[in-house]
Structures are given as C-alpha cells and as structure tokens.
C-alpha cells in the first residue's frame, strides 16, 4: 500500500471519530502552544532586556589611564596621568566612532549665594549628552566654542539644582562659585535617578573639560575618555582600533604593557542575554513535559482504539492486509494525530502570543526554529507513543480478532 493511501486511511479513521480525535489532540495542542508562547515571551523579554542594556550605553567604550608604580606601591587603573584630550580628538577620526568625550572629575565644594554643597564637577565635551543619552531639562548645553575659550559655564544635575537653589525658580543665568571661580549656569539636566550601583547620578555639575582642566585641576590629562561606537556590532572592532591608536600615540612597543585600559559594557549585555536564554530553555522544558503528557494521552487512546477496533483489524487481515500494513495504519494514525495537533498547537501558540503581547504589552518574538522543533517533536511523540499500540494491533491473530466481541 502506498504512503499516500496509508495517510488517507489514517485521516479517514480520525475523521470518523472527530470528537475523540480532537480531544486526544488537545494534549499535544496545549503542549505545543505552551512551548511557542513561553519561548516567544522569553525571547521577546530577552530582546527587550538586551535593547535596554544597549540604551544604557552598551555602545560605550571607556578608556582609562593605566596603573603606575609609586615607591613600590602600584596604583589601580586611572592612577597614571597619560590620557589627554588630544588622544580623544585623534579617536574621532576612527571609522565606527560616533562621538568621543573626555571626562575630568573633581569633587569639591560649590557655593551659590547662602547655600553650599559638595558635589562632583565633571569636565566633559558637548558630545557628552549624546553619549550618555541624557537630555536637558532647561537652558542650553555648552558648545565647542565654550571648550575653545574654556568658558566659565555650567550645566546642573537636578540634585544640585535643589540643593544650591532650594527656593525654586530657574537657576539658569545665576552664578555658582567653584574653588573661587564663578561659573554661569546655562542649563539643567533631566533627572536620571540612582544608577545601578546606587549612586545619585543627578548629583553632578557639568562644565567644559577645558575649563575643568585649566581652572579646577590644573592638569593636562583627563581621568577618562568616553567613546561611543556607531552600533553595538561595532563595539569590538572600535575597541581594537582605539587600543591600536593609543599604543601608537603613546609609543608603546610590542611586549610592553599598555599605559591605559579599554573596557566596554558588552559583557554585561551578554550576561543578561544568556540569563534570558537559560530562562527560555527552562520554560520550554516545562512546556515539553506537557508534550510528553500529551503523548501518553495519545498512547492511551490508541490502545483503546486498537481494542475497540479489534474486529476491524481482523477483517482487514482477512481481506489481505499484512501485519505490516496494520502497523503502518495505526502508526500513521497516531503520527497524523499528533502532527495535526502540533500544527493546531502552533496556531494557538501564535494566537496566544499575540494576545499576551496585546494585553500585557509584553514584547514577544516567535523564533521560527522553535516552531519547527515543536511540530517535529510532537510528530515524534506520536510515533514513539503510537508504536506500542500499533505493534499490538499488527500482532493480532486474524481469527481471534474476527471473533472478538
């Protein structure tokens, strides 16, 4: 008997018992739908976590000075004074670099009228707001001309706004005094809140890096260079280019340790992503258990079906069916049952995923590979759990089967 004839026979038998076939399929339908929905939610969540980590600055590459040894004691990274704004300028010419900003930090007392407050002064470039993705709340940010002229202008974080100007009102246009130098407030930043490390990101005052170096630190070096790659994919190559450029500029010969360190946040993104993948597999594993339960349901019904149709089997044998034809028939029935269940399950999985993303506003993503995996696995379940009943049917003795009441 041909393959198509066998499949047709199986379909006929299943259609003859519509309600029972549907109920039997239900286990597989639910199992496959559960796999699809959980994987879709899991992988959607993973993507969204990755995206938000990227938004936090996974494109960001941080260059710090290296360590130096002073009197036998080694300072940590950042101890050396080797990075200059010129290094940063050189980096802007590299392909894949979107923006560079030096960072010079000074922790000091700031005075405004009768109020004073200790805070961190950050000397940065105008590109800083772009690199950090940090918009202004009011006023303007300083420009390249302000850098060139080492202008005495400042942009305040919200914490400093409330501490230095407690009476309310717009601080823009007012003066603050830092280490005896008056700075004019030209803008304020939006509130960022706490960082993931628990520090108050709003407790900062931004000034042009040139002003910070000349008027506050008196040094020619910076504490950090912040480099933003054009895309997350370019981070690794940009990191390599930056390293090579600095080695060249700092005349570091091969074999000597670098006097700087280049880091990025990709490892954090990778960790978050792999955590998501583990969760996804866990959920899919739970869903797969329901597939196996569905398979046992199929075996149960096929056993009932074989017993119930013993006379039919005897008849088919007396009409010339070989044992192998009977085996194929029942095996095909259970496989068709579970495969059709799998396909219906995929449909329900798509619907379920859609409903979840609509109602819970949860990002979802259906991975195509999992769809094929789920349907293929459910068909395998049908073959595996259908084999025993089919075998039982094929081994029936035609006379006993015909006489069966």
């Amino acid at each position: 008997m041909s393959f198509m004839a066998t499949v047709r026979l199986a379909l006929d038998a299943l259609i003859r018992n519509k309600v029972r076939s549907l109920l039997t399929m239900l286990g597989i339908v639910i199992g496959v739908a559960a796999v699809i929905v959980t994987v879709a939610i899991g992988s959607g969540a993973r993507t969204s976590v990755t995206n938000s980590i990227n938004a936090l600055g996974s494109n960001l590459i941080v260059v710090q000075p290296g360590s130096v040894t002073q009197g036998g004691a080694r300072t940590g990274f950042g101890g050396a004074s080797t990075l200059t704004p010129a290094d940063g300028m050189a980096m802007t010419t590299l392909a894949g670099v979107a923006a560079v900003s030096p960072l010079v930090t000074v922790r000091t007392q700031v005075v405004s009228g009768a109020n004073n407050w200790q805070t961190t002064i950050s000397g940065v470039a105008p590109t800083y707001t772009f690199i950090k993705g940090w918009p202004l709340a009011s006023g303007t940010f300083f420009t390249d001309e302000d850098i060139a002229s080492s202008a005495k202008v400042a942009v305040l974080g919200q914490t400093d706004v409330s501490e230095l100007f407690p009476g309310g009102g717009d601080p823009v246009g007012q003066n603050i005094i830092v280490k005896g130098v008056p700075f004019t407030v030209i803008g304020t930043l939006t509130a960022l809140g706490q960082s993931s490390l628990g520090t108050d990101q709003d407790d900062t005052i931004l000034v042009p890096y040139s002003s910070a170096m000349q008027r506050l630190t008196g040094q020619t070096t910076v504490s950090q260079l912040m480099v933003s790659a054009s895309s997350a994919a370019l981070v690794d190559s940009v990191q390599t280019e930056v390293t090579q450029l600095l080695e060249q500029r700092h005349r570091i010969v091969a074999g000597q340790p670098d006097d700087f360190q280049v880091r990025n946040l990709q490892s954090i993104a990778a960790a978050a992503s792999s955590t998501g993948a583990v969760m996804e597999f866990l959920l899919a594993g739970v869903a797969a258990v329901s597939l196996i339960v569905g398979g046992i349901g199929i075996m149960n019904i096929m056993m009932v079906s074989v017993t119930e149709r013993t006379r039919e089997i005897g008849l088919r044998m007396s009409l010339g069916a070989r044992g192998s034809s009977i085996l194929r028939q029942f095996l095909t029935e259970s496989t068709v049952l579970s495969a059709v269940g799998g396909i219906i399950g995929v449909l329900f999985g798509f619907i379920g995923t859609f409903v979840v993303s609509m109602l819970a506003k949860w990002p979802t993503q259906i991975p195509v590979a999992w769809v094929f995996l789920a349907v293929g696995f459910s068909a395998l379940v049908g073959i595996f759990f259908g084999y025993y009943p089919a075998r039982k049917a094929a081994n029936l003795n035609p006379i006993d089967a015909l006489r069966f009441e």
Partner: protein
Amino acid sequence: MTAVVHIEQLRKVYTIGETQVIALDGVDLTIEPGEFIAIMGPSGSGKSTFMQITGLLDTPTSGRYAFEGKDVANLSADDRADIRSRRLGFVFQSYNLLARTSALENVELPMVYAGVPEVDRKRIALEKLAIVGVSELAQHAPNQMSGGQQQRVAIARSLVNNPGLILADEPTGALDTKTSDDVMSILTRLNDEQGITIMLVTHEPDIALYAKRLVTFRDGKIVSDGPNAHRHEPEKIVA
C-alpha cells in the same frame, strides 16, 4: 484442471491449558473449480476450524493443503495474507463492513491491500455492486442499510479481486428467511453464471440445499460427502 482446494489428512489440535482439543481429525477434501459446496455440521463439529484453515486464516497442526496447486500448509503470515488478498473472498455472518464508511469504500478495501491503482478501484467496485444489485447504495454507510443489503455489499467486496474461492461463513445466520433466500440466490447465480467456486459453511439444512455438493462434519471428521439431490431452485432474484 488444478483443484482449487486439495486437502489430505488435515489435523488441527488446540491446547487449552492442559487439555488438548482435537478440532479436525484427519480430513480429506478436494474442491474443483466451479463447485458450490456446503459444509454442514453441528457446532463443535470442526466446520468453522476447517473454514479458517481453508481460508488461510489459520494453519493446520499437520496434513497437506494445496491451494490452487500451491502448498500453503506452512506459509508465513505475510504470504498467507497475500493469498487471501488476491485469491480468496470472505462473506461473514455479521457482514463485517467498516462502520461509517460508504459501501463503495468498503468494496474497494481489498483492492487497496492488493495494490490495485486508485483509478481502477472505483470502477471495479461499482461493477461488483451492480452485480449484486445494490448500485444505488454505493454512497450509503452500513447503518443506513438493511441486513440483506449489507450482506450484498459484503458479497460484492468478496468479488473484487476475482477470487479463486469464496468462503461464506453462515452468510444468512443474521437474516430472515426471505432475505436469506435473496442472498443465497445471488451466490447461486454467481456460481451458475460466472462459475465462481463457493464454499458455504452453515448449520441450516435449508440454506445448504442451495449448494451442489453437501459435506457433513461431525467430531472433526467428514461423515458424509455427496452431490445435493434436492437442490433449491433459486427464488426470483431481487435486484
């Protein structure tokens, strides 16, 4: 001409627990092409066992059995299935049609196992349904038919692979007298007009009288074998 069935010293012994039941005890029988033979006997006489072995549904404990000249006493299950598929037709007491399956599909079933191409199956099935006079029931399921109609469909099914022998096991056992006569008339006509060899197993003497030759079993042995001197003339055939 090769005998359809040639059986010598056929024995069949069943072991049930520790007791041995001798169902057939040295049976000799030859059926020539075109015969219409009735196997009679009370229940337990061995006639059903004889039919099952003749129909290659079972194997004998010992003895020789040649079907159409071929030794079939010790064939494998698959080989017996193939002979059943191509050379034998069965008609059962309880019709044994597949439920919720049209008469046409029921009649096509043996051809599916014999590997007849799909295009030929429908044509042959309709042809045979016409021979037994139930063409108009082709699309009906068994539960939409009377017992007599179902048995006609079953006869049509037994005909589709042009069998060398039709085995009819109590074909009228579930039918009333009138319908029994109709069914027997069809079998008689198939034998008379198309020369199809038929072996009828029955315990009803009235029904056996349609056959040309009467064989009686008792206690696993043949106790009488001879031509039927009082053959029924078929009633008018209800088509």
